[in-house]
């Protein structure tokens, strides 16, 4: 197998078989390129992974809900034809209340709040959908630059301008206004109910080193809710967990002719005459190709795979200053039965559950992270996928997966001894909402940001590969000099979540990157001719 791979000449090597790498591989292979995807882990999919963490209990060990899969990517890659099956779609969001007065958000509708708040949420939702359409058009293309602009970039900016104008004056003013403020203020403008505000704020801070009062949280909210514009009213679960999505992406890529090799950790981008010429694995084996595309996060790509000495000092400074320190831990529980959240109808246990009583609580939980501590009363996004998918746990038993914030990557004193203590904090927090849950726990696993970094190769354990903030997003993602998927190293490209339009399982970064690579090489061929 190894020999046949080595004998085969590839023109493109993709580092990392995460979903964007596989999407990029698919489009390039479809365009006739000979593509090899090298993956460090034992299976493709990256953070779209399912792992057995306790005998008989499986969990989506990275991303656990599918919120933003781009339908164009899914359709063009024919993911459903590659065995992708939904266990549940359009999940509702339940904002848990410790006393059982839960709210249920279903698309534009909210149950459990005043009529005023319900109406306000419907109009908030509708406006965000209109904002989302602006972003949608911008996300599906290579981001433009403001200087050295090409016709393509001019078209992107015109398109953006036109979609802004089409919003109408009131919406356009509102988008310009809220885009730079924080979700705390925006939620307070619209709603009275604390639990509803907290549910909205959670979508602005999940996965980010931000509290509700931090700037950029409105953009993060819109980024997360782009899925609302793509035909779903809530997140989805896949049969077999997220690993099934990883497999489907891998099958799609293979179907187009790409080769995928797992257990192959790339440690170096090889260079000759200051140009990328291939990669070397930790085994010492190397592969040559004209084009190397990194699906690894930008910081790891430039700091480790390329190395600062090969980069211009100003660019190296930008890479060094790129913010990619995660604040999210993953909690995985194997449970003897379905947990009973106080006052929650068992029929809702399989929905998306949010544990965040109010915005100040989230902000206080974040405060700890600012000072290198973990939250003493963390907030959570919880999923019990076994309610919809019997393949994940033995009959009658369940798995619970939670994103627990805030657990800063750079914990003061390190995570070595703190992981267990934070796990206890998280379990106690759950116990307060689901009395008796502690007694149901057969096994509990907490992945700290350090663990997530190691498991998925993401710098800082940050699932967006870098903070989604306006200075690292849109025109500037990940950083000037590495935008538009190309890098200062000729022959080296980026295609991962660190590139435009960013993280979440969308697939657009991989798709846009493939288009950019094809386009750039076509134009350089024409130039040469």
């Amino acid at each position, binding site marked *: 197998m190894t020999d046949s791979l080595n004998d085969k000449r590839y023109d493109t090597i993709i580092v990392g078989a995460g979903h964007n790498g596989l999407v990029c591989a698919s489009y390039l292979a479809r365009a006739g390129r000979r593509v090899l995807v090298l993956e460090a882990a034992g299976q493709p999919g990256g953070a779209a992974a399912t792992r057995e963490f306790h005998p008989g209990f499986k969990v989506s060990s990275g991303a656990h809900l599918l919120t933003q899969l781009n339908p164009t990517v899914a359709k063009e890659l024919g993911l459903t034809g590659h065995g992708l099956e939904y266990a549940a779609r359009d999940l509702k969001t339940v904002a848990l209340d410790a006393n059982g007065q839960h709210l249920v958000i279903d698309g534009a509708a909210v149950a459990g709040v005043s009529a005023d708040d319900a109406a306000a949420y419907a109009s908030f939702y509708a406006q965000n959908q209109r904002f989302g359409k602006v972003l949608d058009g911008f996300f599906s293309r290579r981001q433009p630059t403001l200087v050295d602009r090409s016709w393509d970039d001019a078209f992107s900016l015109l398109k953006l301008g036109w979609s802004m104008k089409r919003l109408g004056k009131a919406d356009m003013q509102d988008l310009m206004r809220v885009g730079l403020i924080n979700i705390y203020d925006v939620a307070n403008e619209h709603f009275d109910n604390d639990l509803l505000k907290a549910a909205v704020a959670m979508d602005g801070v999940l996965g980010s080193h931000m509290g509700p009062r931090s700037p950029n949280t409105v953009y993060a909210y819109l980024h997360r809710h782009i899925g609302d514009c793509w035909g779903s009213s809530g997140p989805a679960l896949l049969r077999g967990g997220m690993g099934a999505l990883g497999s489907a992406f891998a099958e799609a890529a293979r179907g187009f002719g790409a080769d995928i090799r797992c257990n192959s950790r790339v440690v170096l981008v090889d260079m000759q005459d*200051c140009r990328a010429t291939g990669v070397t694995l930790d085994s010492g084996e190397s592969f040559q190709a004209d084009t190397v595309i990194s699906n690894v996060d930008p910081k790891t790509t430039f*700091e480790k795979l390329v*190395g*600062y*000495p*090969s*980069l*211009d*000092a*100003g*660019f*190296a*400074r930008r890479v*060094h200053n790129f913010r990619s320190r995660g604040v999210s831990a993953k909690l995985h529980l194997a449970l003897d039965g379905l947990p009973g959240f106080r006052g929650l109808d068992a029929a809702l246990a399989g929905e998306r559950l949010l544990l965040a009583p109010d915005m100040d609580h989230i902000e206080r939980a974040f405060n700890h992270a600012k000072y290198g501590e973990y939250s003493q009363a963390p907030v959570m996004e919880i999923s019990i996928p076994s309610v919809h998918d019997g393949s994940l746990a033995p009959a009658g038993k369940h798995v619970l997966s939670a994103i627990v914030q805030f657990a800063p990557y750079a914990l003061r004193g390190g995570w070595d001894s703190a992981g267990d203590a934070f796990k206890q904090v998280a379990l106690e927090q759950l116990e307060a909402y689901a009395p008796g849950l502690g007694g149901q726990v057969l096994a509990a696993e907490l992945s700290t940001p350090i663990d997530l970094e190691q498991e998925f190769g993401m710098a800082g354990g940050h699932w967006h590969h870098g903070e989604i903030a306006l200075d690292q997003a849109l025109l500037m993602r990940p950083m000037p*000099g590495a935008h538009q998927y190309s890098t*200062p190293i000729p022959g080296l490209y980026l295609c991962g979540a660190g590139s435009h339009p960013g993280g979440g399982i969308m697939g657009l970064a991989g798709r846009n990157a493939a288009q950019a690579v094809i386009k750039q090489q076509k134009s350089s061929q024409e130039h040469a001719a």
Partner: protein
Amino acid sequence: MSLRAHDERMVMPTPFAPRVQAMCQTNDWYIWAGYTTPNTFEEVGLEYFAMRNSTGVFDLCPMTKYRITGPDGEAFLNRVMVRDVRKIKPGRVGYTVWCTDDGMVHDDGTIFHLSQGEYRLCAQERCMDWLQWSALGFDVEIVDETADIAALAVQGPTSCATLRRMGLEGIEQLKPFGIASFPFNGAELTVSRTGYTGDLGYELWIDAEQALPLWDALFEAGRELLIRPVGSEALGIARIEAGFIMAGEDFVPAEQVVRHGRARSPFELGLGWLVDFDKGPFTGRNALLREQRDGSRYRFVVLDVEGNKPAEHSFILDKHGRTIGHVTSAAWCPTAKTNIALASMNMPWGREDDEMYAEIYYNRELHWTRLLSRCRVRTGPVFDPPRRRATPAPQV
């Protein structure tokens, strides 16, 4: 160390201040990189001719000096500089420039390869921040030793003889751009055959505490050889005559540029010969390759200007009176007896046979005169005496 020194006093005296102040008849000072420095000591002409006919001594202490050590010292410098630093062998000095990512010149300076793996970088501007960012990924230590090292330029035809009289045995054998060490007053005196005058000359480097004994010994040794301290005005004429550029005059250091496009690349300063694309990655390489492919915006030239009126701050015009460039530095050069201007020309101007005029204004007793003086591009050096390169150096 040197930054701490400036915490105590905004503008510092140099270690030679007691002697310099005593000898500065004109009391004519300016601030150079945070130090008080004389424009002139007595009379600019006398000082200039000391450098050309005997020995002129210039206090170099304000020159920014960084000590660079560590296993990656060479690799680090090679990434910062446009030239191949590996070619500067131990005991040698190399002139260099360093650039931003955009290929614009931060500064020019000299690298002293003091001993294997140990370097001193001399620069006009402070650049610790840039050096530290450039050190990402390298095992290297960078120390600002500006305040710790006292330095003197000793320049002119009797400079070698003066240093011999001071007791520097064998100094005449030191080749241009070479470095040698001598014991002095219980300390180590480092001498390099370098300078900013285009003539035979040396630079002396010693622990700051040894500054005054060094000054005294030097002036004692050179008394009969007509040694004289020189200020920056005289040095300014000598360096223009030698065709050397100066940061802040002939280009704006890239990090100080505020307006887009005002910085200059090495090619645009006539320093393309330094740029080595074959040595591997260095900061600015991509941008300079692009410039090489797409063409530069400016051409740097040395102009012979007709007449004897210095073309300072002049526009350069074509025969139709259109502006095609401007002068960055100019002087009447007394030894070469030519009127020299260093100029930045808009491309493609500045070719050898271009017809160009310097628009010179000068004032005599409230009477302004405008001159259009024909300029010709100089191809060879203006001032280049054989003693500049002769080894052993002439001892008069």
